[in-house]
């Protein structure tokens, strides 16, 4: 690769400072918990890292850390996918067509301010303790964010571009496909990014309430058996996966939205 690793000296120093800060934090953590009273309720970083790597091979409640991550991710995948399809469609329709906005917006505005987690108890009563309950909660939390972003994006389309497409001969279906959708893509991605983060938060919450597998379960069972390391392992895995999901989404956006400054 001929690309330079750092754009300028500032980038280099920023990286050095970041590394020093994190190392410093880990050192304080290590010595603060080593043989102190804090150490009784809070394991040191080495203990946690050790349990984290042990969880790669050792099973907790029948699954390794990968197994639990897989279960959580699979729940997110189902709920989030449905939310993407329905949220993008509804957002585009409400943004483009007044009739669709008049019909769906009141319902949507009623549901939107309710935190998805508030539905957990109802979801358990409706769908039982199975996977459907988790799908439902994840769906709601992603759907809210995706729909509002796509709706706002569709509303903010430069109407001159629509007129311009019509003058070049586009009919309504072609305007929708060649102007409305591409113009909304940056907003779709913004919604999907917020949606994936909120889904990931929702799956953990749903699993903490009722589940026998998944990262949320790992944390709650750690609490039940007073295994603080296990709780930290769960938190660490959630953080890493959440970070990876956000990074992947940004990468995809950058590829698809080269024309947009936001996508850079």
């Amino acid at each position, binding site marked *: 690769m001929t690309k330079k690793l750092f754009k300028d000296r500032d980038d280099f120093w920023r990286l050095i400072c970041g590394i020093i800060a994190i190392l410093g934090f880990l050192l304080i953590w290590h010595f603060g918990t080593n043989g102190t009273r804090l150490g009784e309720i809070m394991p040191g970083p080495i203990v946690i890292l050790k349990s984290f790597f042990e969880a790669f091979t050792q099973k907790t409640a029948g699954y390794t850390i990968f197994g639990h991550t897989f279960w959580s991710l699979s729940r997110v995948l189902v709920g989030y996918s449905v939310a993407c399809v329905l949220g993008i469609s509804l957002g585009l329709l409400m943004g483009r067509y007044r009739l669709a906005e008049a019909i769906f917006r009141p319902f949507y505005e009623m549901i939107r301010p309710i935190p998805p987690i508030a539905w957990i108890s109802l979801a358990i009563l409706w769908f039982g303790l199975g996977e459907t309950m988790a799908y439902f909660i994840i769906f709601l939390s992603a759907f809210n964010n995706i729909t509002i972003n796509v709706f706002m994006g569709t509303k903010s389309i430069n109407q001159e*571009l629509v*007129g311009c*497409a019509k*003058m*070049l001969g586009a009919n309504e279906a072609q305007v929708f496909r060649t102007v409305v959708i*591409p113009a909304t893509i940056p907003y779709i991605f913004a919604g999907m990014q917020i949606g994936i983060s909120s889904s990931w938060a929702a799956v953990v919450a749903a699993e903490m309430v009722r589940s026998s597998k998944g990262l949320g379960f790992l944390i709650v069972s750690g609490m039940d058996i007073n295994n603080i390391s296990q709780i930290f392992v769960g938190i660490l895995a959630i953080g890493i996966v959440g970070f990876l999901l956000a990074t992947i989404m940004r990468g995809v956006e950058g590829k698809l939205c080269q024309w*947009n400054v936001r996508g850079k």
Partner: protein
Amino acid sequence: MSVERERKIEAPVIECKAVHKKFLNLAGEEHVVIGDIDLQVKKNEFLVLFGPGQCGKTTMINLISGLLPATSGEITVNGKPVTGPGADRGVVYQTINLFPWLTTMGNVEYGPKIRGVGKEERQKKAQYYIDLVGLQGFEKAYPVKLSGGMKQRVGIARAYCNEPDVLLMDEPFGALDAQTRYMMQEEIEKIWQKEKRTVIFVTNNIEEALYLADRIVVLSNCPATIKAEYKIDLPRPRSYVDPEFLRLRKEITSIVDITK
């Protein structure tokens, strides 16, 4: 004007009969923007609508393009009444309005593409017009990477590539800096000489009007009516310092100033 040229431009392509446009302002009062305009534009004629700032020139373009309905009167293009937007009229906008998610090639081939023209054929045609406006080498660039003048070249190529019967240009160089503006005036002149089209060109810049027009229609201030018409027979390409050019410039400017 030579006899041959006269014959070439005799059939009217655009016809406006008693066109009238009223808007309701926020207070609900009627506001007449266009007051009874009769206008005929012949085939391959370069007509310039010239008038002061807010006199309704853009409204006139919007009426002919069909984006706004006229309050009364009739507009026909090649004998067909204008009822809405359509590909028989190409527009070049002051705000340029390129599709930012499409490259130069994508923008220029947009019209033929939605009409279902095959990829090879439409890209060949688009390439011809991209070359014509001098943008070879920038086919794959997104608009965000192009300068103002280059963007407007894409806008012109896009309008041309759709092969409309008439081209409507609404102050296309209004957003460009003075230097680029002169350059683009010369450029559009050359393009039009090479690819003759029926053009209505709107401007509030008298030099631009005199440099480009076969005929200048001077509009009065709101409501817009036709104040005067000038047939410009100066040989092309014109010089900004030709004595006749300067005389016409002085004469037309004085008319507009009195109207205001």
